[in-house]
Structures are given as C-alpha cells and as structure tokens.
C-alpha cells in the first residue's frame, strides 16, 4: 500500500498531524499490509510530528514489526535525520 503523508495531512508540523499519520499506517499494519510511506513535499519535519507518528508505532508494535511493515521514501536529508534521531531515542528509552 502506497501512502503519501501530505495526502493524509496538510502539513507535517505538529503532534496532532503526526497522530493522523499514525492512525492511517496503524490501520494498514493491523490488516497485515506492507506500507510505503512517501514524505514527498514535506521538507521540514519537527520531532513532535515524528514522535506522534512513527515513534508511537515503534513503541506500540515493536521495532522489528514496524521495520518489516513500513518503508519510508522520498525523504529530504533533514527528514531522514529526524526519523533516525527520534527512533534511536525511542529505542534507547525502550531498552532502559
């Protein structure tokens, strides 16, 4: 299943917008589908958005499950960096 974040939300700035993305992706994962999530057009993504979307998925479903079910594409270097940092922080917190 291909999803574009900017078709799910108007902007990628807030935790509320991240929660919308979380709900959409979570629903497809629950159906056993693999999701390719495109960040095309979203050049600048703060931590609140990532924490409320992707990190929440990782915390609820586990890192391995999300990695198997979700690919994230068309990311700017900043989006990639933010995803990496927030997921790393979550992994550290979960391991503690």
């Amino acid at each position, binding site marked *: 299943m291909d999803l574009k974040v900017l078709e799910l939300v108007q*902007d990628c*700035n*807030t*935790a509320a917008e*991240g*929660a919308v993305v979380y709900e959409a992706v979570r629903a497809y994962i629950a159906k056993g589908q693999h999701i390719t999530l495109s960040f*095309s057009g979203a*050049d*600048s*993504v*703060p*931590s*609140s958005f990532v*924490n*409320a979307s992707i*990190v*929440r998925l990782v915390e609820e479903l586990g890192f391995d499950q999300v*990695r198997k079910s979700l*690919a*994230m*594409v*068309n*990311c*700017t*270097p*900043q*989006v*990639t960096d*933010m*995803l*990496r*940092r*927030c997921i790393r*922080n*979550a992994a*550290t*917190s979960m391991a503690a």
Partner: protein
Amino acid sequence: MSHIVTLPGNFTEAAIYPFVRAVVTPEGMPVAGEVIFDFQRLSWIDGTGLTVFCNTLEWLRARSAVFSFINYTGHKQAISYLDDCGFFKEYLGEPLSSKASPRRTSLPFKRIQPSEGFWWLDNTAAPWLADVLRVQVGALVSIKTSAKEIFNNIADHSAEQIGFVHLQHYPRREEIRLTISDFGTGIPATIRRRYGDMSDSKAIRLAVEEGITTRSTPNNRGAGLRILVDYVSHNKGSVAIYSLGGMLLTEPNEDGTPAFFSSQGAGTYPGTLVDIILRTADFVGDPVEEGEDFQWI
C-alpha cells in the same frame, strides 16, 4: 500601586536581566499592579530587546497587571525603530509617525500562536531569510525545523500558547537574529516536574541533552531543544536560551557540534526566550534534494 520602570539606555541582550529584575520580583511576580515604563533613557534597542519588552508586557497583562508608557515622544533612534516595528501601533493603537513602516532589515515582532508560526515560517520568514542569506529556500529546512521545535515547545508547555517572533538582520555585524519568546511556565519548571529539584541553569543544561523528555504531553518524547541546538550549530550559528533564572549559550565548534555554556542568570526571565544567531558569512545551509529512502538500522 504603580511603579515606574526606566527602560535601559541600551536595550539589548546584555540588558535582559537588569530589565526583568525591575519588573519581575525574585518570587516571579509583577513588581506592582500598575507598571509605568519610562522611555527617557532609551537610546538603542535591538530585536532581542524588543522581543523581551513585548513578552514582558504580555506577561504582565496575563497576570492582570496594567502598564503604560511615558516620555516616548522624542525622535531618538530607538523610538523610531520601535515605531517602524509596529510597537506603538500594537500598544497605543496607532504609530507615532505616519511614516512608520517596516525596515528592509527586519521582519518586525509578531504575536503568534504556534499554529500561525508554522505558516509564518514557510510564507514570510523563509523567503526573507533566503533573500538575506542568498540561498534557496530549500537550504533553510534545518533552520525552519529549529523554529518549529520552539513553536511546538510553546504549544506543549505554555498555558497561554502565545509567543513573539522577531527577525532582524544586522548587516554590519553580518548577523541575523531570530528571536522567539513566550511567557509560559519556563523550561526549568517543566524539567523539575519530571527530574526533581535542581537549579534553573542545571535544568536548562539538562533539557538540551539528547533523549531528555518531560513527557509533558502524551506525544512529547523530548529531543526538540537538542535538535534545535544541533541544527543551528551545524549552520555555524549560536543559540541563547533564557528561561526563568537560567541561561544557556551555545557556540559552534569547528566540526559544527555545539559547545555549551550554562549559568545562573541575574534575574528571573518571565517565560522563555530563544535567540538563534546566524552568521551570514559562515552560513552552511542544507543540501536541496529529496528522494532518500530511510534505511532502518
């Protein structure tokens, strides 16, 4: 009971604490129910001073204190600057001069809610910054993200959910300052609620550690302040944070990582002020590209 506060002659970053000490008691309360600000000595004010002043006025208003101004009708440089930035229009209802208008070197202070801040960033601040720095808007994503982290912090931690932004270019200093302030509970108070008692300066230093989170909202996992500092440092810029009695300065190391300098301030800032200082000659910028696939580790 009224109390007269004389504005500093040179209202810049260095005057923050003397000014707030005159307005805010050590207990964090307004110095009086009515505060009269005397502009007589004011000969210079920059964007940081203006943002501090406006934030403090709103902080007073939020605590039901009233304020007024005296001796502001001179034609001094500072009064003219304030008028051009819209200060008197905002607080007196009309500008002092019919010729008052924003200068090319500033995006005047604006009272914003976080949701408006995102729009302001994309549609007003980013094109202005790109023009001053002579880069594409796409090269500013990490700076935009830094400001978004602050707006989200205001949304998460400030009951009033209102802040001030001001952008100022200082061509002779080859410097741009993006100043954002709110009059919320302050970073140290939020950190102490989660991590226990500590000084304001230690709390601010802790707040910029990677992975530190107050979990102040269900979706808050922290990281925002550290990301702000890292991104600004990567662009060879500096950050100054004033919050309650603590202050933190960062300077970029040679490799673009931040060096931290925290200290206890000489007063209590009413809320939080973040000054992002970019050096136009050293600005790095972000690669303008899209299309990476995220690699799970």
